């Protein structure tokens, strides 16, 4: 697997996959996609990078431990659920705001935050498993 072509292409492939994963995540509410599938795409992208270049570059690029990313995701998902408590509606009720950013109406919601949390959990958990398995010294 350690061919020059693969090693050269892998970073570009990973970058594309990460970008695509975010795209899939954001379009999820209206078209096929969402946090779970987006997370899987991102995780495979990172796994490819790890196979091509070894795990150390991936760890450096991620900055956080993958499990930390998963934990942040779970935390965000919980927060997204709890926000509705402050609006005096039951836990996990979706709340929407549409602020105007540069004259564009951007619909933002707790649901989106929740989906982002799902995305991070999937990326973090799968990447940490993949990276742990890719380590060769064990």
């Amino acid at each position, binding site marked *: 697997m350690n061919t020059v072509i693969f090693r050269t292409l892998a970073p570009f492939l990973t970058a594309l996959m990460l970008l695509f994963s975010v795209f899939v995540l954001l379009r999820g509410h209206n078209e096929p996609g*969402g946090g779970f599938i987006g997370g899987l795409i991102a995780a495979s992208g990172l*796994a490819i990078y790890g196979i091509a270049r070894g795990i150390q570059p991936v760890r450096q690029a991620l900055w956080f431990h993958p499990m930390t990313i998963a934990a942040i995701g779970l935390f965000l998902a919980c927060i997204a659920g709890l926000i509705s408590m402050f609006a005096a509606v039951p836990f996990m009720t979706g709340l929407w705001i549409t602020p105007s950013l540069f004259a564009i109406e951007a619909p933002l919601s707790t649901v989106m935050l929740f989906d982002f949390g799902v995305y991070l959990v999937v990326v973090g958990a799968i990447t940490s498993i993949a990276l742990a398995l890719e380590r060769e010294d064990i």
Partner: protein
Amino acid sequence: MQTDMALTFVAFCLPFLGALAAPLLTRILGHRAAWPLALFPAAILWHFTGFLPEVSRGEIVTGGYDWVPSYNVSFSWLIDGLSLTFLLLISGIGTLIILYSGGYLRGHPHQGRFFSFILMFMGAMLGLVASDSFLMLFVFWELTSITSFLLIGFDHAREASRRAALQALVVTGGGGLLLLAGLLVIWNVTGVTQLSLLLSFGEEIRASPFYLAILLLVLGGAFTKSAQFPFHFWLPNAMEAPTPVSAYLHSATMVKAGVYLLMRLNPVLGGTAPWETILPAFGGLTLLVGAVLAIRQTDLKLMLAYTTVASLGLLVLLTGFGSEHAAAAAALYLVAHSLFKGALFMVAGLLDHETGTRHITRLGGLGRAMPITFAAAVLAALSMGGLPPFFGFLGKEEVYTALGGGDLRAIAFTAAAVIGNVLMVAVAFAIAIKPFLGAKVATPKTPHEGPLLLWLGPVVLSVCGLAAGLLSSFVHPLISSPLASAIAGRPEAVTMSAMPHASVALLLSAVTVAAGIGLLAGFDRARAAADRLVNDIGWGPDRGFDQFMTGLVRFAHRLSRLLQPGLMEAYLTVTFVMVALALLLPLVWYGEWPRLPIWPADAQFHELAVMALALLGVGGVLTARNRLNAILALGIQGFSVALLFLLFGAPDLSFTQFMVETLSVVILALVMTRLHLQPRDARPLAQKIPDAAVAIACGLGFCLYLLRVTQGRFDPLLTDFFNLYSKAIAHGANVVNVIIVDFRGTDTLGEIAVVMTTGLAILSLIRIRKPAAENGKETRR
């Protein structure tokens, strides 16, 4: 009223806030953090003092917030004479204990942690005695067990501490579970979940066929917590904790939680024959056992611990005795005991801290060096000995008045109380006098008076014991009478004063004190006798606990060996056999076989091609020469299924399936490279046949099941609902995604928590392999 309620709520939260602040404050201020931290309990004390006028008028203050209204669960409190007395004792003694710990653990590297634990305990204890709702009572009850575990095991490097902590947790936590069961039965019988409402259901419960079950379960909780025989053994072991903990948890507050519970439920459960038999019997037995064991000890803290056991026995005896003055006696003795025992424990700790030993035989002649400590000890001991005009005297007079009577039962229990008290008087004076008078004995450290932080607590408590006795006409209407009324369940006025007046009770008191002092003269001989007695018996519940724990561990070991042989093959076989059975049995049982599917006339070529590809994948798995090829072939089969999903209008599902298949191939391949397996799967035929049978059964089961399900009538209710509302109220056109993140978002939250946990588990499993692999290499060399 609203602000009052909010303030009370804040008062219940304050200890926990203090626990959060403690480590930081201690890092900045060192041991002087005790002063600001003592403000937390002091503020609570001040707040609850404000309830005195209302409660002394006989009113019951309730308040709280709804929590889960659909299950009738609330965070609510009930403050009457009983709760308030406990609240004041906990916060008042708590203030002194925080200051005392500041001096006692000065310079300890984990002093901040200690403050944090003890404040947490305080919060739990306050919540326990003020709880109105059953659930809150139980939660706080267990929370006191847990914080007590942390505090006993504070010195966690010593094995004795760890054992004592575990023992206390097992005994009191287990008792808590019994209490939970008891509360649930009460809830079932009456339908109420609040203590304040329960009071009017007394008749109903006592007449219920479940009364005895309720009683035994509640007593299981109370007796373990309050260290009644035969569960008394954990309390002396808990003396492994630092002395502030012993003074606070294991004499003044936590161990009284069981007594509190019995007093609280006395109007509801009390007055029956079982109640008035079991409680006095166990209480009296505990009193005698505790007193005899106390005499036997030479360690100051252990002597005090066993007298605490004895006193708790006396309190249980009084709570269950049911005579006219019993409630008043229990009330007075409860308050008196908290004051003098807290003080004496702190004195013991002070002696230990300043001299380096707390063995009574190695202490002597310290009166000149430690005058303040000596004074506090003597005042507290006089109260414990029950001499006028101390509060302890009032308690003892009332006890003898309550127990006094002409019948055999009264005489028997009076005799028990007198014997117990004589022994306690002897122990009290032994502790207060022996270390301070007589010839000087060389101690590990040169003795000198402790700092303010250390002597403030015992002095304040012992002076309180004196003041409460002198000002009894002032204290009774505020504290004693409401407390006694709450215990008895009817208005009671406590009138006992410190002025001795001729009565049988006074005579008994005089006998007690005289005999106690007489015993003091021959203390060493008494100790030897008690020691011999205990040694002759040999086996005790403490050793029984060890035997129980060893047996439990052995049993658990055997059971898990049986259920978890550690063979992956066995696990997988069992799992898949169960899957096959779950799929096939209902079909057989109910005769719900599906009709054979009809070959679709309009099958397109590309659809058939995809199915052929899937079959090719399966064939590849079966014929693969090595494992890696099999994994790849399985991936091909998965991709074909994903394609089918795509063709038949489930893009989300197919999308996910693609990614899952890709990742499973990658991860399986990575796992294979690490497992050092033979590349070929070389199973003998004898194993291949049953494995294949299980696999075919599973596949057939899924196939038949799916066929049957799709042949049933399709209920479009949910589909219609989601189609209708997905865009309208959840602003999303992709129904699948809307269901995942919005309609059933809580499910997803649970699922991602599972993903995270699984990830952590896998990660740790991979890391565990490391040493095993190294060992393997070494053996191969």
